[in-house]
Every structure is written in C-alpha cells, then in structure tokens.
C-alpha cells in the first residue's frame, strides 16, 4: 500500500473546523457521519416506510369493508397483511425510535456526536438496503412473503412457501437486524461514555434512559432473531432440518426463539415512545417530571420482565408452562402502572397548556391505557384460549403497538420540529390533525374488539355477508379512511413550514433538556457553549438562574465565577483557534453576574 503519505507529520494539513460534513448537496447527505443528518435520514426513511405500510393497510381495509373478495385474491391478501406487519414493525416503529435516538441522544447528554459516527452510517445503509430487499419481494414472480410477520415454520419453510419472496424477507430482516444491533451498541456507548461533565446517570432525561434500556433489549433480543432467521434460511436454501418435523426438527423451537425476540420487540417499540411523552408532558404542565427515579426503575423492570414473558404468545400451542408466563405477564402491569401514575402525577396541579405535542402525548396515554387493559385480559391463559388469533388480539396489538407509536411519533415531530428545522409547525393544523386522528383511530380499532369477541379470525381476507361482524368491518374501514384524511392537515403543515416558514428561536416551548440550549438547528458539533448541569433540567436551571430557589444553580456555584474567563468554558470538544483568539465563545449575552437578562 502506498496510500500513506511520506510527508513528515508537521507538514500534514492542520485540523480544519469544517472537517466534517463539508460536501455540499446530495453528496454531503450520502457521505455524512453527522448524527443529526443520520437521524434525519432515519426519520425520513422510516416515515416513508410507514406510508408504504399504511397503503398496504388501506388495501386490507378496502378488502374487508364488504363480504366476499373484491380487490385482491386470497394469495395477494396474505402477502399484503404480511408485508403490512413487517413494514410497520421492523421498518417503521424500530427505525423511527433510532431516528429519535440518533438525533437527540448526543444532544441530550451533551456529546459532540455518536460514539462511532461511521458505524452509525453503516447502520443506516444496512437498514435502507434491508428494507429495500424486504420490499423487493413484491417484484418476485411468486410474490412477497405471505406467512405473516412472525413466519411460523413449517408454513414459512421450504415446503410451505417455496417462493423467493420468503428468502428475500429473511435476508432483508437479517440486514435490518444487524443494523439495529449496531445502532443499539452505538447509542449505549454514547450514553455510557460521552455524557457531558455533571451529566450523571440520574440527571439524564428519561428519554435517554428509555433509549438506553431499549438498547439493552435490542442487544439481548435481536441476536436471537438473527440466529433463528439464519437457521430458517439454512432450512430453506441448504436443506437443514432445524424446523422440519420430518427431519427431526422442531417447529416449536422457532416460536420460542422468535418470541424471545418478539416480546422484547413490543417493548423496544414502546419504551422510546414512553420516553418521548415523558419529555413532553412535564414541559407543557410547567412542572418537573414526577417520580424521576420511579420512572427509571419502572423502565428497568419493564425491560427485564419483557424478556421473560415471551411464551404468552404461545399459550394455545399447549406446549408451554402457563403459570410462569401468566404471572410474569401480569407483573408487567405493575411497572407500567407506575409509569402511568408518574405521567398523571406530572400533570397533576400543573399549569397545563395544550399545543399539538401535548395533545398527541395525551392521545398516547389514552391509547396505551386501552391497549394495556386488553393486555391484562389476554395475559390470562383461560381468556387467551378463546381470544387468540381473533380480531380482539388485532385490536389489542394495534392499540399497544400501532396507536401508541403513531401518537408518540407525531408528538415527537411537533415537539422537536423547531429544534431540527428552526421553524414551527402550524398549531391550528396540528389540532385538526390530532382530532381527526383520534376519531379515525378509535373508529377503526375500537370495534375490532367486538368483532373479535364475535369470532372474526385474524388474517382472513373474506367473510360471509351473514357474519355477525359485517357491520363492524364496514365501520372499521370508514375509520381507516378518516385516518388517511387526518394526514392532510399534517402534510399541509409540513408544506407550510417549507414554503412559508414560521421561524422561531432556539427554545420556543420553554423546555427543560440540554438540546434546547443550543441553536436550532444545532451547529456542527452540537454545542457552542454549555451551561453547568446541576439537575435533570439544565435548560430550565439556566433560564431561571437569577431566581433564588427556582433553578438548581446556587450563587456560589464555581461555574459562575468561571463564566468570566471566556476560554475556560469553551466547549470541551470544539477548540478552534480563531474563535479562541476572537474570544467570542459563550452564551449570546454578557456573563450572568453583570446582567440578569435571559440569554
């Protein structure tokens, strides 16, 4: 190799401040290693995937609106519901959580970037290519995967689904699984190693805690799925017999391995969204979060228990030890209840305001409460035996995984849009969006409980006109149309913020966490300066530093005295000589001791 330069080290170019993210235009986006850009890429890609998954669900609802088959035949219907579940779970819900993690974790803990910036970009490319491989199944002559998103063999095996669509599904999810593992490592390392001075573990925003524990679960659960998928791929392509009964394999083994991934997965797509609303509710209640340590411990308990409940998805196999899984499943209701208690406690007695992010956060609470209650019902094996594989389960999972994710995603978009773009999303359109979505969502899924109780099986594209649940299905489909309608004000708000921007300052909400200290959008290395971190609300403390007893900054805090010495509070990671000489670092105004005004 002759690529290494022969020049002496002294002649090498000095470190330039514009060393990263310099490429302009599209090349800049393709070669970026900036966590903020990668976060935006993750967000845009996962929302595109959500759109694809939503179109697929529209096909399902259109088909089920009337008895008999009208739009797709049975075979296509199987592909459509399989890909709807796959896209929504693997390609939208988890990656959007990673979008939030990528963008916000370094900002919230005060880090210059993620711990491994280039690995971060590898993760994104693997997610994108894996997603495209999964979707490319639709181009195959035998169609996409059609065995449901949990791919039970022997139906998902070589004899059950010989087409290449199933193989593409497996390979694509291997790639997105690898991407998820790498991202989880990256986020966990960032949280553990790159926090700013004073940002102790128990001062981190709850969202960061929730993402850290999500990463724990990803690191425990995803490798199990990846190895199970490799085993299934070996069965399908190389004649292995892991899950083939005639060759001595055990189909039930797949179910164990899959659900050991699959149940933590439910919480992998829930915890980050819990974190999002936990950041939003206190800000619009004008109170600190209630029960910080309780929330953290509840999250730890949920993360731990979620990996010990997997076989409650397998009650009806008759091959699992029911009491163990019934007890652990019912136990999860306890930490989840603590979380609800803390969310309500955060609002209790607060000065509540309801801009769109808060509306969506409250919508999240209601949706998740309904899903959680049916979850307690389903945790009882006795009830589960009669409800399993009916639309009751479909309603339950759309409340816990669908509605909560969607409401929290929109809450996050409305809340952090000013941080990402420096512009506000129109609040009036946001309210229209919220109310249409609430009505549409509950019209679609609330009646599904009833059609499930009346015996409608899931994953069947057809029913008789005399079936007792014919009317419910029509109501559901009308609700799905309302959900589609609710996206119009949202898209309008996005277009409006693009064409007629409503520019706002760095902290339009008067929020608490560190990311609101920096500019909107944040600069290259995130922070030009940083306030002292003395509580879990550093931005709040800084805003009210002159109010005795409000912020956590004492008058004798050593940081105050240091504030006059400009050089000493340069950010710890962006030493730029020219700035140093100019001495223009620091907060926009004079040091706090001379001037009590808000910076």
């Amino acid at each position, binding site marked *: 190799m002759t690529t290494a330069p022969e020049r002496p080290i002294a002649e090498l170019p000095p470190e330039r401040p514009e060393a990263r993210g310099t490429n302009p235009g599209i090349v800049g986006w393709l070669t970026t290693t*900036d966590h903020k850009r990668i976060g935006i890429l993750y967000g845009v890609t996962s929302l595109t995937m959500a759109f694809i998954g939503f179109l697929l669900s529209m096909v399902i609802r259109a088909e089920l609106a009337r008895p008999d088959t009208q739009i797709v035949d049975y075979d296509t219907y199987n592909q459509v519901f399989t890909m709807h579940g796959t896209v929504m779970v693997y390609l939208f819900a988890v990656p959007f959580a990673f979008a939030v993690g990528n963008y916000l974790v370094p900002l919230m803990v005060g880090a*210059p*970037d993620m711990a491994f910036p280039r690995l971060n970009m590898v993760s994104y490319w693997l997610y994108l290519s894996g997603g495209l491989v999964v979707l490319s199944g639709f181009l195959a002559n035998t169609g996409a995967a059609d065995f449901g998103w949990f791919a039970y063999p022997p139906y998902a095996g070589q004899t059950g689904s010989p087409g290449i669509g199933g193989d*593409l599904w497996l390979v694509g999810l291997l790639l997105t699984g690898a991407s998820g593992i790498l991202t989880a490592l990256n986020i966990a390392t960032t949280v553990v190693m790159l926090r700013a*001075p*004073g940002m102790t*573990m128990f001062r981190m925003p709850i969202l960061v805690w929730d993402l850290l524990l999500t990463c*724990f679960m990803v690191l425990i659960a995803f490798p199990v799925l990846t190895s199970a998928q490799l085993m299934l791929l070996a069965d399908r392509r190389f004649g292995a017999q892991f899950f083939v009964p005639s060759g001595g394999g055990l189909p039930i083994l797949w179910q164990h391995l899959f659900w050991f991934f699959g149940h933590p997965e439910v919480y992998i797509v829930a915890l980050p969204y819990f974190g999002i609303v936990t950041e939003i509710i206190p800000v619009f209640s004008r109170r600190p979060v209630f029960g910080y340590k309780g929330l953290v411990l509840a999250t730890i308990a949920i993360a731990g228990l979620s990996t*010990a409940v997997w076989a409650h998805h397998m009650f009806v196999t008759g091959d699992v030890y029911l009491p163990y899984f019934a007890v652990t499943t019912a136990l999860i209701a306890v930490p989840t209840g603590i979380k609800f208690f803390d969310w309500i406690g955060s609002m209790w007695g607060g000065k509540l305001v309801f801009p769109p992010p808060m509306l969506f956060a409250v919508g999240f609470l209601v949706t998740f409460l309904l899903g959680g209650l049916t979850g307690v019902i389903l945790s009882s094996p006795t009830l589960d035996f009669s409800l399993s594989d009916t639309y009751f389960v479909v309603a339950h999972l759309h409340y816990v995984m669908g509605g909560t994710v969607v409401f929290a995603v929109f809450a996050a978009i409305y809340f952090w849009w000013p941080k990402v773009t420096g512009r506000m999303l129109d609040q009036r359109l946001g309210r229209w969006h919220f109310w249409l979505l609430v009505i549409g969502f509950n019209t679609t899924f609330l009646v599904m409980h009833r059609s499930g109780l009346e015996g409608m099986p899931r994953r069947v594209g057809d029913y008789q006109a005399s079936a007792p649940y014919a009317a419910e299905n029509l109501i559901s489909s009308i609700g799905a149309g309302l959900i589609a309608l609710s996206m119009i004000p949202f898209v309008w708000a996005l277009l409006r913020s693009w064409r007629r921007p409503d520019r706002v300052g760095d902290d339009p909400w008067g929020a608490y966490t560190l990311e609101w200290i920096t500019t909107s959008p944040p600069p290259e290395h995130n922070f030009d300066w940083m306030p002292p971190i003395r509580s879990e609300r550093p931005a709040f403390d800084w805003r009210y530093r002159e109010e005795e007893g409000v912020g956590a900054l004492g008058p004798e805090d050593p940081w105050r005295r240091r504030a006059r010495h400009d050089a000493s509070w340069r950010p710890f990671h962006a030493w730029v000589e020219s700035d140093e000489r100019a001495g223009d670092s620091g907060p926009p105004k004079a040091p706090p001791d001379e001037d009590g005004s808000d910076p």
Partner: protein
Amino acid sequence: MRIEATLWGVSACFYVVAGIAYWVLAGDPAGITVLLVASLFGGVGGSYAWVWRRRVGDRAQDVPEATMLGNAGEVGYFPASSVWPLPIAAGLTLLALGPLFGLWVAVPGASLLALGALRLLDESMHKAARG
C-alpha cells in the same frame, strides 16, 4: 461507571434467577438457553464497567459538581464525513443475497465489503498519523 456497572450486573442476576426459575418450573431447553445466555450479556458488560471503574475512578460525567473543564482535551475521534460506510453496507447486502442468487452476487459483494473496510481502516490510521 458505578451505576452503569450496577445496571448490567442487576440484569445478569435477573436472567440467572429467571433462567433457574424457568428451568425448575418449565424445563424447556430453548428458553433456559436464551435466558442464561442473556445473563452473559449483563455479566460481560457489567464486569467490564466494574474493572474500568476500579481503574479510572469517577469520570467528570459521574461527578455531580463537575464543570465543563472536566472533559477538556480530546474526547474522541469523530471523523470527517466518510464515503466508506456506503460500500461496506452495499457489500454486506450483496453478500447476504449470495445464498439466493449465487456467487456472481456474493463475490462482488465480498470485494466491496473488503475494499470499504480496508479504506475505512486506512482513514482512521491516516487520522492517527495526523493526530
């Protein structure tokens, strides 16, 4: 690192307890295996964090009264924008598609992967030389 080490340690203990309880009650080999292997995850992470805590003590980010000076100096290597993640991921994708379509996909994939990985390494070493 004390809290981090505790976190991992507690997760290791939890999986040992859950695994043994499951072993006694259910006796299903698949579940026992995954639970006990999961305890290794906590054990490895926790002991690593514990050893480093013993070695370096509290870092600025563990000290409630720390000032920004606590982290002065170089925090880490956050490299320039890099083109090499793209060939690495593209190569890995083609390599994974190999079992489906054959060697004509797998071999270019492996080459792309090797090229990307080597150039990425080179980028890091070049940076170190500049250091």
